[in-house]
C-alpha cells in the first residue's frame, strides 16, 4: 500500500509541464500523461458534443420518419377499403334506383343482377331483398336464407333509417362472420320501405388489409367502437374477439401513438373508415428498423468511432512526440552546457598554462642570452685559466635553458598549437581521419559526404595536427552551412607536377559576395546570431596555417547553390626539405 503511494508520489498522473520535484524520467512520463489528458480533453469534448447533437438529430429524424410512415400506411390502407366499399355502394344504389321491389323479388332477375355484381366485386357472398316487415322475399347465394325474418336485426333498422348502411361484422343465421352493405328505398305504390342487402365475407377485408404489408409492419386490423375485432389480427386474436383501444380518433383524423417495447419503439396509427362502424388500427416498428436507417446508423456510428479512435491515437502519438521533443531539447541543452563547461575548464587550464609559459619564456630568454654571451666571450679568450670548465658549465646552462624552453613550448602547445612539426603526410589519409570525427554529425543531419579521392596522391610536407585542423574547420563549416539534408563533395587530385589540391563543395545556402570578401578576415563571423556562435578565427587560422605550409586556399560561392573551398599544397620534392625546415 505504502509502495503504491510512493510510486504515485514519484510519478503522478498529472503534473502539468513542470514537475520540478520529480526525477527526469518521472517528469517526462508525467509530462507525457499531462499532455495526453489535456489534449484528449480538448479533442474529445467538442467531438462528444457533436456526436451527442448528431445522435439527437438522428433520433428526431427517425421519429418524424416513423410517424410519417405510419400515417402514410394507415391512409393508404383506409383508402383501399374505402374505395372498395364506395364502389360496391354505388353499384347497389344503381340497382335499387333502377328496379322496383316487385322486379327484384323475382329470384331469376335477382340472380342475374347478383352474377353481374359478383364479377365486379370480389368477396360478394349473396344478394337478397327484404321487405319492410323484415321478411327476406328473395335471396341469391350459397345459404338457404330465403324467407328468413330479419325484423329484429339491427342492420335492417339502420338500413331503413338511412339510405345506405354498412354493418359491423356479425355471424347471423349462417353462423359465419360477414358484414352487409344494405340500401333502402320507398315503394311509391305501397308507401312502404324495402331493402336490398349484399353480404361480404371478412376474408375480403383481410385481403385488402394484407396489401398494406410493409418492411416494418407488425399488425393491421379493423375494430369497432365497442372493441370487437372486425378482421383477423396477427397479435390480438381472431375476428369478433375483444380488443380495447385507449384512444379513438374523431371523424376522419388519424392519431399516432408512440410506445417503447423493450429497447425498440413502436408506432400505432388509428383512423376511422368513413361511413362504416370500423376503426383501422396499424401497428408498425420505428423507422430505425428499416434497412436504410439501419445502414445510416451503422455508418454514423462507424464514422464517429473512427473519429474517436483517430483522435485518441493522434493525441497519444502527439503527446509522446512532444514529450520526446521536450526531452531531446533538454538533453541537448544539458549536453551543450556540459560541453561548454568542459571547454571553459580546458580553456582556463590552457590560459593558465600559456600564462605560465609566457612569463617564464622572458626570464629564460635572458638567462639563455646571458649564458650565450658568456660562452661567446670565454670562447674568444684563449688564455682564460678556467676556459674549458667555464665552457662546460655554460653549455650545461644552455642545455637547461633548452630543456625549460621545451617544457614551456609544450605547455603552449597544449593551450594552442604553436609549434609546427613538419612531416611527410598523405592528404587522403588526413581527410579520412578528419571525417571519422565528423561522420556521426553529418549522418545525424542527413548530410551525405561523397568522396572522390585520387589514389597514389603525392605526399606533401606539412604539420599533421595543423592540417587536421584545416580540414576540420572547412568541413565543419560546410556541415554548419548545410544544417541538414545535403551533400558535401570532397575531391583530391594532383593538379600539376607541382601541386595537389583538395576541393570541398557543399550544397549549403551559399555566401553573398560582400561576405565572401571578408571570409578570411580575423574576427569576421556569420555565426553571430545562430546557436553556435563563431569566434571569427576559424577560417583566418586555417588561412594562416595553409599559407604557412606554402599552400593556398581559395573560395567560390553562389547564393542558393553552395560553396567550394579549394586548398592547394606544393608536392614534396627531395632537396627542398632543409628549406622547408628552416621556414618552419
Amino acid at each position, binding site marked *: 500500500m505504502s509502495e503504491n503511494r510512493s510510486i504515485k508520489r514519484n510519478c503522478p498522473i498529472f503534473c502539468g509541464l513542470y514537475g520540478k520535484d520529480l526525477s527526469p524520467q518521472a517528469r517526462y512520463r508525467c509530462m507525457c500523461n499531462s499532455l495526453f489528458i489535456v489534449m484528449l480533453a480538448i479533442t474529445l469534448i467538442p467531438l462528444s458534443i457533436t456526436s451527442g447533437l448528431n445522435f439527437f438529430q438522428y433520433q428526431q429524424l427517425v421519429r418524424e420518419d416513423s410517424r410519417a410512415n405510419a400515417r402514410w400506411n394507415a391512409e393508404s390502407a383506409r383508402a383501399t377499403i374505402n374505395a372498395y366499399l364506395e364502389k360496391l355502394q354505388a353499384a347497389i344504389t344503381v340497382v335499387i334506383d333502377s328496379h322496383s321491389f316487385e322486379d327484384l323479388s323475382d329470384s331469376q332477375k335477382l340472380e342475374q343482377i347478383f352474377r353481374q355484381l359478383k364479377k365486379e366485386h370480389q368477396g360478394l357472398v349473396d344478394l337478397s331483398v327484404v321487405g319492410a316487415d323484415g321478411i327476406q322475399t328473395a335471396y341469391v347465394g350459397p345459404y338457404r336464407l330465403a324467407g328468413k325474418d330479419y325484423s329484429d336485426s339491427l342492420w335492417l333498422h339502420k338500413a331503413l333509417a338511412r339510405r345506405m348502411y354498412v354493418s359491423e361484422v356479425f355471424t347471423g343465421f349462417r353462423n359465419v362472420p360477414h358484414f352487409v352493405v344494405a340500401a333502402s328505398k320507398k315503394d311509391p305504390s305501397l308507401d312502404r320501405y324495402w331493402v336490398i342487402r349484399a353480404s361480404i365475407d371478412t376474408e375480403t377485408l383481410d385481403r385488402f388489409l394484407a396489401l398494406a404489408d410493409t418492411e416494418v409492419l407488425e399488425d393491421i386490423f379493423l375494430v369497432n367502437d365497442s372493441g370487437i375485432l372486425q378482421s383477423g389480427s396477427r397479435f390480438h386474436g381472431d375476428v369478433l374477439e375483444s380488443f380495447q383501444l385507449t384512444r379513438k380518433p374523431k371523424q376522419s383524423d388519424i392519431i399516432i401513438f408512440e410506445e417503447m417495447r423493450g429497447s425498440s419503439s413502436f408506432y400505432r396509427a388509428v383512423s376511422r373508415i368513413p361511413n362504416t362502424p370500423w376503426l383501422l388500427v396499424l401497428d408498425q416498428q420505428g423507422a430505425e428498423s428499416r434497412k436504410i436507417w439501419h445502414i445510416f446508423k451503422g455508418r454514423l456510428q462507424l464514422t464517429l468511432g473512427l473519429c474517436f479512435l483517430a483522435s485518441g491515437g493522434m493525441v497519444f502519438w502527439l503527446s509522446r512526440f512532444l514529450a520526446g521533443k521536450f526531452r531531446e531539447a533538454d538533453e541537448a541543452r544539458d549536453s551543450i552546457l556540459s560541453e561548454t563547461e568542459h571547454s571553459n575548464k580546458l580553456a582556463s587550464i590552457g590560459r593558465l598554462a*600559456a600564462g605560465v*609559459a*609566457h*612569463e*617564464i*619564456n*622572458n626570464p*629564460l*630568454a*635572458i*638567462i*639563455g*642570452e*646571458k649564458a*650565450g*654571451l658568456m660562452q*661567446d*666571450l670565454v670562447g*674568444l679568450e684563449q688564455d682564460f685559466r678556467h676556459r674549458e670548465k667555464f665552457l662546460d658549465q655554460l653549455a650545461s646552462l644552455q642545455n637547461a*635553458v*633548452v630543456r625549460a*624552453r621545451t617544457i614551456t*613550448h609544450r605547455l*603552449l602547445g597544449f593551450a*594552442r*598549437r*604553436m609549434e609546427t612539426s613538419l612531416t611527410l603526410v598523405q592528404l587522403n589519409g588526413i581527410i579520412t581521419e578528419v571525417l571519422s570525427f565528423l561522420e556521426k554529425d553529418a549522418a545525424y543531419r542527413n548530410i551525405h559526404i561523397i568522396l572522390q579521392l585520387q589514389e597514389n596522391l603525392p605526399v606533401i610536407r606539412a604539420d599533421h595536427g595543423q592540417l587536421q585542423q584545416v580540414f576540420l574547420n572547412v568541413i565543419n563549416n560546410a556541415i554548419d552551412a548545410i544544417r541538414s539534408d545535403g551533400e558535401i563533395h570532397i575531391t583530391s587530385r594532383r593538379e600539376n607536377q607541382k601541386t595537389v589540391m583538395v576541393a570541398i563543395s557543399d550544397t549549403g545556402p551559399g555566401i553573398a559576395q560582400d561576405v565572401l570578401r571578408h571570409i578570411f578576415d*580575423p574576427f569576421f563571423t556569420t555565426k553571430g546570431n545562430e546557436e553556435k556562435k563563431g569566434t571569427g*578565427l576559424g577560417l*583566418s*587560422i586555417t*588561412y*594562416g596555417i595553409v*599559407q*604557412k605550409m606554402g599552400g593556398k586556399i581559395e573560395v567560390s560561392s553562389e547564393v542558393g547553390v553552395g560553396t567550394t573551398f579549394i586548398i592547394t599544397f606544393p608536392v614534396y620534392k627531395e632537396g627542398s626539405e632543409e628549406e622547408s625546415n*628552416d621556414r618552419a
Partner: protein
Amino acid sequence: MTARRILIVDDEVDFGTTLAERLELRGYAAKAVSGAQEAMGVLADNWRPDVVLLDLMMPGVDGLATLDLIKQHDPKIQVIILTGHGSTESGILGMQRGLFDYIMKPVDIGDLIVRINEAGAQ
C-alpha cells in the same frame, strides 16, 4: 661590405642589450631599444636597420602597433617578432601586416641568425 643592421625592440632591456652584444660579436651592427618611441627615434636618426627583432608584449605601444609604425616608415624593413607571448592569432595578424617571421623565445642564436639572414636577403 657593410655589416647588416639589426634593431632589437624589447622592453626587457637586459635581454635586448645582451642579444645585441652577441650579434655584434658575430659581425652585425646591432642596437637595442626598449620601446616603440625609441625605435622610431633610431629610424628618424637615419640609422636604417635591415631587420628589426620586435617583442610583442610591450608597455605603451605594443608589438603589432610598432610593426605598423615601422612598415609605415619603410615597408622594406623586414621585421621578425621575437616574443615569449606568442599565439597563432597574433602570428596571423602579424603575417597579414607584412611580418617576415614569428619566433618564440628563448631562441638558439644559430637559428636566429639563419632567419635574420633570410630576412635580410629579401
